[in-house]
């Protein structure tokens, strides 16, 4: 018989091979561990911020609890270790109001938005959608948002989308909850895990204001003495979920309008024969939701003599909805001759376009820090200004700032085109002294027509970019893109970076990945252990009986080393 020496040499190379295999195994283990779940979805956290030290929003980010559904919300069960999954379509607002108001303990909240609110769905948008179901969801979202951002919630709140995986998990959870049992460690079910670090304060959030300058036709005295007209819009948003706040109407429409007006006037001003005797200043400010902080800082940074040459400023805010009515908000009394003149000019053009323009007056109170409209910041520095908006009433703090419900599908680009034409035409008639005359400077099908595809492409871009100011870095691609676009249309572009005022503090961690695991209960594991134990014992007894005989089995039983045995 061949006698192979398999001792020393083989052992020598076996050990390093095995140790490297084990190391590889450990590495593979740690990688595989992370993608172990039934489902992994992207979720977006409720905003967390402080105003003057007072905490608001959801204060926690990490989540590790069992899932429950709306069925449980009606009972009196203890939900402090449960995460409720609530689709927005079937949401019961009173329940949320109560549990927040009474500070009921809850493990967490996962709110599911309909799939067409997802930012990835932009390509499928056609005309503005006005179905009643969508409007209902929109209203619920507006109310829910206001409720959530003004409450101090001690547990994590996340927003997700109703895709297939989450829907099947929710159906399962609802079925389990119908039996009346709470999913805990001893009863199995689904576990929702978000591994997020503790949210940290964002130190010195920057706001960036961009301005573009189109000089007018110099008279012999030099362009410094020409009057200036400013056209301004605020481009940032604020909402319940900062990673989803795209604000298509609230600030997106304004930005798109400013860009289009800049483009039109740059065509006019490029030729000295058609250059007007007014300088034009285009501004895109940040910090809108926070009492127009950015506008204030921008205006303070302008030279005072220059500020005095500003004839008037037009601020654009929310001009994208498909109603035919626009409002001009002013802080100077309407009897003021200048305001009357401007309003008449607008009304004439509006009539021709089939729009209705109304005038609203709101006095500003210098001692009140609340700034509801952008033109009020101009008025506080004694510059005549007005805001053109579809909103008839001044919004409250952090209201109508482009939140969850402000999506691309609710914006009508034809309305934006019309509003652009309104503002541009009124401006042009004023600049070229053609007020009251029937002349169509930006006529359709001319080289100066308002370009709908330009508006559409910028609107689509802005509707896919969340723009909450503290989360935009100094060199954010969007800010660079706006700067480049203004550089194309205007002569001189400046970007001003400021720090957001101290009373608002924001915390990071706005989006994470949620892992949904299907877990078995401890009772199941215990039962399995019991079953396996008895199987092994039976196997042992069977083998002893067949190979050694029954007497051996009994003699084992009598052995002093105690073994708990049950004879079959």
């Amino acid at each position, binding site marked *: 018989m061949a006698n192979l020496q*398999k001792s020393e040499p083989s052992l020598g190379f076996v050990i390093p091979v095995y140790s490297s295999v084990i190391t590889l195994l450990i590495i593979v283990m740690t990688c595989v561990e992370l993608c172990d779940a039934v489902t992994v979805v992207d979720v977006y956290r409720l905003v967390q911020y402080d105003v003057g030290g007072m905490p608001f929003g959801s204060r926690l980010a990490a989540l590790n609890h069992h899932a429950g559904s709306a069925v449980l919300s009606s009972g009196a069960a203890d939900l402090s270790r449960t995460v409720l999954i609530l689709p927005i379509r079937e949401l019961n607002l009173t329940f949320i109001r109560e549990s927040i108001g009474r500070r009921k303990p809850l493990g967490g909240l996962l709110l599911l938005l309909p799939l067409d609110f997802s930012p990835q769905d932009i390509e499928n948008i056609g005309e503005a959608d006005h179905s009643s179901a969508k409007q209902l969801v929109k209203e619920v979202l507006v109310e829910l948002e206001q409720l959530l951002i003004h409450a101090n919630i001690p547990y994590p709140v996340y927003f997700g989308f109703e895709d297939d995986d989450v829907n099947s998990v929710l159906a399962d959870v609802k079925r389990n909850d119908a039996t009346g049992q709470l999913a805990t460690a001893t009863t199995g079910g689904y576990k929702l895990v978000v591994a997020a670090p503790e949210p940290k304060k964002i130190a010195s959030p920057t706001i960036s204001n961009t301005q573009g300058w189109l000089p007018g036709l110099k008279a012999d005295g030099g362009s410094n003495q020409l009057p200036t007209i400013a056209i301004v819009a605020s481009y940032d948003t604020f909402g319940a979920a900062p990673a989803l706040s795209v604000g298509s109407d609230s600030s997106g429409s304004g930005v798109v309008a400013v860009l289009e007006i800049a483009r039109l006037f740059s065509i006019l001003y490029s030729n000295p024969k058609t250059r007007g005797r007014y300088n034009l200043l285009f501004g895109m400010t940040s910090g809108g939701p926070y009492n127009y902080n950015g506008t204030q800082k921008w205006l303070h940074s302008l030279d005072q003599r220059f500020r005095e040459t500003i004839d008037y400023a037009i601020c654009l805010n929310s001009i994208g909805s498909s109603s035919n009515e626009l409002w001009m908000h002013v802080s100077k009394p309407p009897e003021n001759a200048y305001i009357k003149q401007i309003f008449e000019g607008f009304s004439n053009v509006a009539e021709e376009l089939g729009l209705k323009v109304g005038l609203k007056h709101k006095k500003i109170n210098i001692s009140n820090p609340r700034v509801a409209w952008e033109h009020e910041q101009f008025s506080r520095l004694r510059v005549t200004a007005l805001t053109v908006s579809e909103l008839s009433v001044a919004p409250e703090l952090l209201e109508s700032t482009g939140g969850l419900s402000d999506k691309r599908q609710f914006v009508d680009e034809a309305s934006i085109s019309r509003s652009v034409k309104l503002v541009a035409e009124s401006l042009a008639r004023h600049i070229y002294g053609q007020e009251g005359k029937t002349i169509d400077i930006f006529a359709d099908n001319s080289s100066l027509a308002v370009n709908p595809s330009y508006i559409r492409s910028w609107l689509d871009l802005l509707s896919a970019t969340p723009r909450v100011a503290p989360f935009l870095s100094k060199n954010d691609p969007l800010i660079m893109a706006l700067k480049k676009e203004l550089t194309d249309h205007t002569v001189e572009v400046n970007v001003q970076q400021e720090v957001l005022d101290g009373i608002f503090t924001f915390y990071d961690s706005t989006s994470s990945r949620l892992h949904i*695991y299907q*877990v078995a209960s401890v009772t199941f594991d215990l039962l399995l252990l019991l079953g396996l134990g008895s199987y*092994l014992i039976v196997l*042992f007894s069977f083998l002893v009986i067949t190979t050694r005989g029954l007497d051996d089995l009994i003699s084992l039983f009598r052995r002093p080393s105690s073994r708990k045995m049950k004879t079959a």
Partner: protein
Amino acid sequence: MTLFHFFNCAILTFGPHAVYYSATPLSEYDTLGTSIKAAVVYLITALVKLVCLATFLNVSETDSFDPYQELLKALIGFIDVAGLYFALTQLTHRNISQCHKFQAVGLGWAFADSVLHRLAPLWVGARGLEFTWDYIFQGLEANANLVLSLSLAALGSLMWLRKNKPKTLIPIIYACAGIVATMPSITSYLRQGLGWHLPKIVGFELFTSLAMAFISWQLFAACQRPSN
């Protein structure tokens, strides 16, 4: 919880081997050395099989059942049989009776198979939070595999170690050995060709392993009688 589940599946997969060793007279005759040598032979056989598979087999994109590839796999599977032959006949054992020799070799063979094929997936998968039935089925499969290895070792020892066999039983012995050796190919055909799911396959494996064990036990007893 999850380490608990890992522990459960581990005792299902590896427990029967330990129980078999301690329950039967193997422990009294101290045949651990034989089992370990058989395990090492299994490892080497597995490496050789791997090299052959890598050389001769082409990876198919689809999951369908390709008869030619499966035939090739079955032929390579016979290397298993060669390894078992080597372990039974060529390794020097102390004087242990044939009855115990095949049991020790079969046990070592099955234990090495379980460790190599099932320990890594168990460690990586069963410890996660997610619960699946897969690992319990894997454990049951390990049990069936143990019984199959023992029957193959028994038939192998009958074929190669016993010189005086009743003439009528020889073809039956070879036929049974052939069936047991090609069991892996049959299982993969069922999984891919007929599309059976894991519970059904495990049930089939358990059933066939018990049937083959019974048949080989009868054959072994039949061959034992003339020499007594």
